[in-house]
C-alpha cells in the first residue's frame, strides 16, 4: 500500500522542475565554478543564473544572497554573525526554530544577555511585548516569518519596523514560510533572512542567507573564499540550481491547500484545532488529540497509510513538549497530544477524506486504552 504523505512541513518531495534543472549538474556538467576552463565556466554561469532568478523572486540583489548548506547554517550565520564580539544583548522570540534558539542559548552561555519575546495564546509574537524588549544597543532581534510547528504567520513587517525604530537589525527565519508565502526581502524590512530549498520542493543540503550587507557578517566557515568570501567551500552547484528552479516553480503553482485545509478542519468534529484564530500557512493543520500521546497516534496513522508528525517529539527518555506550543499556553500533556498535518501542493480531496476516516477509527481504538 502506498502511503499518503501529509508531512510537507518536515520536508517536501523534489519537484519535476528542480529535478530536471539539476540533472545535468549531477552527471556531465560536474565542473567546479572556481575553475576558469569551460566546465568551470558552465558551472559558474549556472549558479549565477540561479542567484539572479532567486534575487528577482525574493526582492533582493543577487550579491545579497549567500548559499549555505541549509536553513540551519543560514540561521547560525545570521545570529552569530550579527552578534559577534564583544559580549552584548540580543532579542529572540520564544517560538524560534532550534536553528535560531540554540545559537541564542549558546550566546547566553558565552555571556550574552537574551531577551525572550513572548507569544499570545494563538502563538503570535506580541508586538507590544517585543517593542518593550528591544533596546537600541541590541545586536539582533530574531523573529520567524511563520512557525514550523504551528504554521502561524508572524507580524514580521510590524516587528521589523519596531526593530528599525531602535536601529536594531532583524533576522527573519523564513524557512517554513517560503513554501507558501511570496516572500519579499526588500518589503520585509529584515536585515537577514534564512531559507531552505527542501521545504519548497527543492533538494536537501542547500539553503540561502539573504543579507542586506553580507560583508557585515563575520563568516562561520573559512576556506577558499567562495560566495564572495562570505561562505567558503565548493558550491553545491546542482543544489543551487535546483533551489532556484523549485522556488520559481512554487511561485507558478496554483495553490489548493487552503481549501483542503478547510475540508480537513470541517471534518474533525470535536477535535480542537490549534491556533485556529490566527493567520496560518495554508497547508498547516494542528490537531489536539486529548488523552493520547501524539507520537502513538502518529504511529497508528502511519500503519493506516498516512504520514504526519507529532507536534512534540520524545528524545531518549526525556519528553520535550514543543517549546512553541508550551509558549502559547499549553500544558505539557496538551502539547504532547498535538499532531501536525501539513498538506502539499499535490494533496487531493480524496486523500483528506481518507485521512479523516483513518483518524476517526484510530482515535476510537486508542482511546479505549487511554487512562480515564
Amino acid at each position, binding site marked *: 500500500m502506498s502511503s499518503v504523505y501529509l508531512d510537507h512541513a518536515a520536508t517536501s518531495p523534489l519537484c519535476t522542475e528542480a529535478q530536471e534543472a539539476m540533472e545535468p549538474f549531477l552527471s556531465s556538467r560536474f565542473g567546479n565554478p572556481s575553475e576558469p576552463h569551460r566546465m568551470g565556466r558552465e558551472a559558474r554561469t549556472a549558479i549565477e543564473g540561479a542567484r539572479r532568478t532567486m534575487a528577482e523572486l525574493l526582492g533582493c540583489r543577487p550579491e545579497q544572497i549567500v548559499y549555505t548548506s541549509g536553513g540551519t547554517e543560514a540561521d547560525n550565520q545570521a545570529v552569530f554573525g550579527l552578534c559577534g564580539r564583544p559580549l552584548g544583548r540580543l532579542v529572540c522570540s520564544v517560538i524560534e526554530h532550534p536553528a535560531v534558539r540554540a545559537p541564542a542559548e549558546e550566546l547566553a552561555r558565552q555571556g550574552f544577555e537574551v531577551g525572550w519575546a513572548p507569544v499570545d495564546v494563538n502563538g503570535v509574537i506580541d508586538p507590544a511585548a517585543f517593542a518593550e524588549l528591544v533596546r537600541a544597543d541590541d545586536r539582533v532581534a530574531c523573529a520567524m516569518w511563520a512557525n514550523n510547528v504551528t504554521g502561524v504567520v508572524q507580524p514580521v513587517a510590524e516587528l521589523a519596523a519596531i526593530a528599525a525604530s531602535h536601529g536594531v537589525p532583524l533576522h527573519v527565519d523564513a524557512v517554513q514560510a517560503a513554501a507558501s508565502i511570496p516572500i519579499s526581502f526588500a518589503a520585509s524590512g529584515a536585515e537577514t533572512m534564512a531559507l531552505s530549498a527542501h521545504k519548497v520542493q527543492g533538494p536537501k543540503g542547500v539553503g540561502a542567507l539573504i543579507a542586506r550587507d553580507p560583508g557585515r557578517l563575520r563568516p562561520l566557515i573559512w576556506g577558499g573564499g567562495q560566495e564572495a568570501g562570505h561562505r567558503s567551500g565548493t558550491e553545491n552547484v546542482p543544489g543551487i540550481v535546483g533551489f532556484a528552479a523549485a522556488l520559481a516553480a512554487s511561485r507558478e503553482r496554483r495553490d489548493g491547500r487552503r481549501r483542503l485545509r478547510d475540508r480537513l478542519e470541517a471534518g474533525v468534529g470535536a477535535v480542537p484545532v490549534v491556533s485556529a484564530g490566527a493567520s496560518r500557512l495554508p497547508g498547516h493543520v494542528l490537531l489536539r488529540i486529548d488523552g493520547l*500521546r501524539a507520537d*502513538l497516534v502518529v*504511529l497508528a496513522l502511519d500503519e493506516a497509510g498516512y504520514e504526519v508528525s507529532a507536534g512534540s517529539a520524545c528524545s531518549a527518555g*526525556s519528553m520535550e513538549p514543543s517549546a512553541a506550543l508550551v509558549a502559547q499556553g499549553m500544558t505539557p*500533556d496538551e502539547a504532547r497530544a498535538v499532531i501536525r498535518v501539513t498538506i502539499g501542493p499535490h494533496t487531493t480531496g480524496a486523500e483528506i477524506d481518507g485521512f479523516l476516516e483513518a483518524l476517526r477509527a484510530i482515535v476510537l481504538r486508542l482511546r479505549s*486504552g487511554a487512562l*480515564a
Partner: protein
Amino acid sequence: MYSDAVIRHALDASRAGELVPHGAVGRAGDAACGDTVEIELRVEDDTVTEARHRSLACPHGTAAAALLCELVEGRDLLDAARIGQSDLDAALTPREGNRECLAVAVDALHAAIAAALQDGRLPLADGRIAVAMSGGVDSAVALLKAVEAGHEPVGVTLRLWIDPAAPDSERACCSPSSVRAARSACHALDVPHVTLDLREGFRRAVVEEFVGAHRRGLTPNPCVRCNGSFRFDALIGFADRIGAPRLATGHYARVVRRDGRALLARGADPAKDQSYMLASVSTEILARVWFPLGEQHKTATRAEARQAGLAAAGRAESQEVCFVGGGDHRDFLARHGGAGPAGEIVDEAGRVIGMHEGVHRFTAGQRRGLGVGGGPALYVLRTETATGRVVAGDRSKLAVRRVRVSPGEVFVPVDHALVRLRYRGAPVPARVVPAGDGFELELEEPAYGVAAGQAAVLYDGDTVVGAGRIASSGASVR
C-alpha cells in the same frame, strides 16, 4: 526511534482497556516525562488469567504495557513477579536511551501484582522465605545466600515516603531507582520481586512521629521505631501473605535462643553491628527471622558481591535517616514543621551567652553549632522548648548516672547489663531495676550526652536482653 517490535506492540490494542468486573490495579507514573501506565490483573487460584492496560504514554511505554499484559497471563502470581525490564529489553529491543521509557510499565505491573497479593493469601510453602531488598549490596548478598542455601526466596521492597523537597530524594534508599535496583537484583537470580508501596503508612507512623517528638523537645531515633513498629511488621505480614514461614534481611545482627525465646544478638562485625537499631523488633517476629550476614564482616559481603558479579556491589550506601533524602535532618525538620523556636543560649546560671536559630538544631551532649567563642569548650546540657532556650555548660555537667526508660521491656530477667544509650555509643555497665512500664538504669560509670527520646538497649554479652525509650535522666543515683 522505534523498533518494529515497539510499533507492533504499541498498536496492538487487544489488551487495552479495562476488566469487568475490576481486578487488581497497579498504576505508575514517570515524573521525568509525565507518562502514566495502569495495568489490571484478574487473578483466579493465584494465577493471572487476564490482564489489561490503560495508559497516557509514548509508544515505548504503551508497547511495554501491552507486552507485559501478554507475558503475565497464565502465570501464577509469584512467577509473574519474575517479569521485569530484561524481558522487555529482549522482546522490544529499544535503543539504550529508551530503556527508561519501558520502566514505567514494569512499575505498573509490579504495583498490580502487589495489589493482587494484598487481596489474597498464598498457601504455606515450607522452603519459601521472604527476603527484604533495599537495592543495596547487603540485601543483594543476603538474597544470594538464601538462594545458595536452597530456599525459595521472594524479594520484597518497601517503598517508603521520602521528603520530595529533599536535595537528593532520588538517591535515597526506597526511592524509585532503589526499588528498580532491588527488583533487578532479584530478577538477575530469577527470584520473584514484589514492591509494597507503604509511603502513606510510613509517613504517618514514622515521619510524623519523628517530627512531633522533636517538637516536644525529644531526640527520637526513627530507625529504631520504624524497625520495631513498622518495617518488620510489614515484612512479616508480607511473608504471611505469600506463604513464607521465614523472613531474611541483610542486617548485621544475629538471632539467638534463650529459654526457648528468640533474642537479638550483635552481628559479628563490630563496626557494622545493627542490633541497636533492631532492638525493638518483637520476639515473635525474631523467631521467624534469619540474618544471613550476621556471622560475617562487611568486607566479606563486598567481596562476595564482587565475586558473584552483583550489580549492587558498587552501590553507595547512605547512613542518614532514609526519609530525609540526603542533606541534614535539621533542615528536614525546618521544612516539615518540626523546627523549634529561635532563642537564647544561656549558661547554667541563666546568663545569656549567645543566640541560636532553633532548638531543634540541638541535642544534649552536642558541641558543634553553638557558635559561642572563647573560654572553655561548651556543650549543650539541655534544650527548653517552652522558652526556646538552649542551656550550655561544661562537659562534666552532662554526666548522667541514672536513666529512666519508659516504655521499655526486659526480655529475660537480668540485674545487671551493659547499656547502650545511643547508636554507636560506648556501652556502660548498669544495674537494671524494673519500674512502671519500663525500667530504671543505675549506671556504674557516668554517661554523657544522654538524650530523651533515644533508645536504651541492654546487652548481656552479645545478646539484647532489653530495650526501651529514654524518658529522663539524672546526675545522681538515688
